[in-house]
Each structure stands twice: as structure tokens, then as C-alpha cells.
């Protein structure tokens, strides 16, 4: 082989190597952009494309699944994103999968993340429109952060005012400087501790009483648990009720009687009026009573005289002996 032919072979290899690099690069880029092989199209509708562009990646559960083919405005609020998805992903992506626009890393390109919903559904078909989930955008985060900053500034301002008031408060500092305060506090705490111990004891006693009562011990327990006692109580209550009824009837009778007496006294008729209002009758009665008293005294003298009479002396002595024997 002449030198010229060898040089031509070397040149051919050199040119072929360059072409292979070019074709390989174009093929790999094309495959990465889903320009070759079998793909299918799915779509989703967003309110905000967030800077999504054709060529951005589409990932299903974090795995590269395809690319964005186009981003078109359907109307003033709906943006249709068309995605080219590799055919091998078709069985895995379900009809109820949810798409969202996210960022590849913290500072990376925009991309579409498709995630399974977790509910059973059939595999996605050509031209299906997936449900979307709106993610938090950077400007929304900054807006919330701005509100939070304002709140923090307000809190800091009020905290500053509070600290200043605390620093200017002589009473508070006097309390803090009071060396007896810790001892008093300790004493108070000891008292509180003791009170709580006593309260615990009281509660325990009450629990025991309640338990005893429930088990029928004591008077209250007997009242609560003894059914015969309850019947007796019921009967007693009935009797009390009957007595109360009779008392009421008696009271009414007494009222009526008092009314009659008051009527007689006020009207000037009957014995009551004569008894309470007629002064001559009262005087007569007094005289009669004086006469009876005098008669009685005279009778007693007669009886004493009779006792000393020899005719009746035996009878009285017999009576005295009988009393002594008894």
C-alpha cells in the first residue's frame, strides 16, 4: 500500500470519527428530548406556567419520563402544557396522577413532576388531561415572609416596651431584691404542699365514704341500699302527709272558731262578749269566786271540827293507817 493510500485511510478514519461524535451527540440529545423511539402525548392545564418552557423535563415519581413539548395559552386563565412521555412509562402513570410545576433542585430549571394519587385507576391514555396541583410560588412565599417579618417587628417593638417597663418598675425590682422573698416563697410552697397532702387525705376519706355508702355501710348507705327502709320511709312520709292534712283541717276549724269568737266579741252577742266585754259580769264572777273561797274556808273549818268529833274520829284514824300501809 502506497503512502498516499495509507494517508487516505487515516483521513477516512479521522473524518468518520468526527462524524460519529457528531451523530452520537445529536442522537443522545434527540433521545433525551424524546425525538426518537415510541412516545405518547398527555396534557395538563395550569393557571400559571411559572416560566415552564418546551424542552423542560417531566418526571414521574422522580424518574425521567419525558419532556415538555409545548406551552400554549388556551384562554386568559388556562395554560395547556403538552408533554411527550416515553411509552414504557404508560403502564405506570395512572389516569388520576397529579401533575405540578416544580424546580429541579433549589436553583435548577423548571420541570413537571407527576406523582401517583394513591387511588386505583387505569393507565393513562394518549391525549389524557391530568389533574394538576398548584404549588407554592416564590413570590407567594416572599409575601408570607413579608407578613411574618411585620409581625416579628411588632412583637419585638412590644417586647422592647415591656422590657423597658420592667426595667423602670421599682416595685418589681423591690420584689426581686427582697431577700426574705425566697424563704417566704419556700414556706408558702411548703404550706401549699401540706395543704395538698391534706386535700389528698380528704379526697381519700371521701372516696372511702363513698365506697362504704355504695357498699351499704352506715346510715346513709342503709338509706340508699335498704329497700325495706325505703318502704318505711315512704309510709312515714304518707303518715306525715295525713297528719299534715289533719293539721290543716284542725287549723281551719280553729280559724273558724276564732272567727266566731271574734265575731261574738265584736258584735256584742253570746257568752264570749259577755265574758270579755261586760264589766258587771266580771265583777259578779269575782264576787262569786270570793264567796266560793270564803265558803270553802268555812267548809274546811267544819271538816276539821268534824274530825275532832268523837263520832267520826275512828273513821279518820282508819284512813291514816291505810295510807301508812300503802
Amino acid at each position, binding site marked *: 500500500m502506497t503512502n498516499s493510500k495509507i494517508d*487516505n485511510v487515516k483521513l477516512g478514519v479521522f473524518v468518520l470519527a468526527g462524524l460519529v461524535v457528531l451523530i452520537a451527540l445529536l442522537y443522545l440529545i434527540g433521545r433525551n428530548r424524546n425525538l426518537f423511539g415510541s412516545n405518547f402525548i398527555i396534557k395538563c392545564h395550569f393557571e400559571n406556567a411559572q416560566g415552564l418552557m418546551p424542552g423542560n423535563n417531566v418526571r414521574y415519581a422522580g424518574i425521567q419520563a419525558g419532556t415538555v413539548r409545548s406551552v400554549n395559552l388556551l384562554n386568559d386563565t388556562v395554560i395547556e402544557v403538552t408533554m411527550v412521555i416515553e411509552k414504557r412509562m404508560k403502564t405506570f402513570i395512572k389516569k388520576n396522577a397529579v401533575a405540578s410545576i416544580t424546580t429541579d433542585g433549589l436553583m435548577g430549571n423548571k420541570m413537571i413532576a407527576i406523582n401517583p394519587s394513591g387511588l386505583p385507576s387505569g393507565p393513562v391514555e394518549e391525549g389524557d388531561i391530568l389533574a394538576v396541583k398548584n404549588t407554592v410560588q416564590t413570590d407567594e412565599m416572599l409575601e408570607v415572609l413579608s407578613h411574618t417579618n411585620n409581625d416579628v417587628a411588632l412583637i419585638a417593638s412590644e417586647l422592647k416596651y415591656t422590657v423597658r417597663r420592667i426595667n423602670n418598675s421599682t416595685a418589681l425590682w423591690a420584689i426581686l431584691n427582697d431577700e426574705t422573698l425566697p424563704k417566704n416563697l419556700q414556706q408558702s410552697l411548703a404550706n401549699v404542699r401540706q395543704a395538698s397532702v391534706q386535700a389528698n387525705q380528704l379526697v381519700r376519706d371521701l372516696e372511702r365514704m363513698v365506697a362504704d355508702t355504695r357498699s351499704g355501710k352506715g346510715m346513709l348507705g342503709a338509706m340508699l341500699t335498704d329497700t325495706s327502709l325505703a318502704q318505711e320511709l315512704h309510709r312515714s312520709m304518707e303518715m306525715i302527709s295525713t297528719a299534715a292534712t289533719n293539721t290543716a283541717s284542725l287549723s281551719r276549724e280553729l280559724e273558724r272558731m276564732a272567727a266566731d269568737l271574734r265575731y261574738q266579741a265584736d258584735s256584742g252577742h253570746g257568752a264570749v262578749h259577755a265574758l270579755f266585754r261586760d264589766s258587771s259580769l266580771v265583777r259578779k264572777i269575782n264576787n262569786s269566786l270570793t264567796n266560793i273561797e270564803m265558803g270553802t274556808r268555812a267548809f274546811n273549818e267544819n271538816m276539821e271540827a268534824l274530825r275532832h268529833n268523837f263520832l267520826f274520829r275512828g273513821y279518820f284514824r282508819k284512813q291514816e293507817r291505810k295510807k301508812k300501809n300503802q
Partner: protein
Amino acid sequence: MYEAGDLSRFAGRFMREWFRPRYELAEFFRQCFIIGYKSFPLVALTGFIMGLVLTMQLRPSLIRYGVESQLPAMVGIAIVREIGPVITALIFAGKIGSSIGAELGSMKVTEQIDAMEVSGTNPFKYLVVTRVAAATLMLPVLVMLGDAISLYGAYLGVNIRGNTSFHLFFTQVINNLAYGDVLPAFIKSFFFGFAVGIIGCYKGYYSQKGTEGVGRSANAAVVIASVMVFVIDLLAVQITDLLGLN
């Protein structure tokens, strides 16, 4: 201005002679071998070093911003879009522009070109068309191979202080490349090659004042071709931007 107009006329004559028979294929392939194949070691070495150095220079800046993982993507885009074509074209201008200018200049001052005309051979077709065509077609090949070697150098650069697998590195590079990165770079490398070839031939073909003029022609060929590489690069960026390929 005169020289620019004369160069344009020279380029126009090249276009006419290129498509007009008879074709000097043997000389064309010989020039392709000399211009392309023999330039490959130099382009490969510079490309490898550029990939390695670029990666090592970029790493601290990316670490500062916490995006070290984006290093393969950034290096890949930088090499394929800009550094690969431009650095290769500059190396090509230095090696091929000077050699064409010196070769044609010495032929001119020794009246070999006049002798070819007298003998009935078209010296423009034999000397200029073959060299310019070879330069135009070989530079894109060199750029592609230079890109591949440069990316390999970048991979080694990433692994000097990191631990990234070859597969992951090239996956990250390819994932971040688009046709808008590769095709404009590939197309503009044809223009770079044409500029280097036509300027080298022009300076050599119209070389004057003896051996001193040969050196001046070779030097001017390198300087003007290098400047033209940047001018074409500027125009290419504007055009790709207008076409929305950036």
C-alpha cells in the same frame, strides 16, 4: 478597506472555481490529510487541557454558590457551545493559517505559481480551492473530536477532587444539551475553517517582497484569521439569538 474588497473578490473567485470542473480531488484529499489529520494531535492536546483546566477553574465558584453538582452541565455547555469551536479555530488558525500563508507565499515569491500558469495548470484551483475546501470541511471534524476529548478532560477534572462516574457525568452533560447548543456551534465551525483557509491563501497568494514578504504573509494570515474567528463568532451569536436558539 481595499484589502477587504480584494479578499471578497478572492473569495468570490474561490466559489466560482470550486464548482467549476476539473476537480483536483487527489490534491484535495492530500490537503485534508495535512490540514485535518495532522492537526488532530495539537487540537486533541489543547482540547484536553482546556476541558481539564476549565473544570478545575469553575469548581471553586460553583462550590461557593452551592451548585457543584451542576459542574458537568456547565462545562458541557461551555465546551460544546463556545470553547470547543473557538479554541479549535484559533489553534487551527495558528497552525494552518500560517502554514498556508507561508507555503503559498514562498511559491509566489519563487514564481512557482507563475510557472504553473505557464504550464497550463490553474494554480488557483490546484492551490487555493483545495486548501480552502479542506480547511472548511476539516475544521468541523476537528471541532467535534476536540469537543469529545475536551469533555473527557473535563470528566477527569471533575474526578480530581470529586467522585463522579463516567456514566453520570455524560448523562448530566447530555441532559443539559440541546440541538440549539450543538448545531450552531457545528455550523459556525465551517465558517471558521473557511475564514482561516481563505485568509491564509489570500495572504500567501498575493505575497510580495521576497522571503521577507513570506513571513509577513504568514503572520498576517494568522492575525487576521484569528480576528475573523472572533468576528464570525460574534455574528453567529447574534444570528442564533435572533433565531431563538440560545
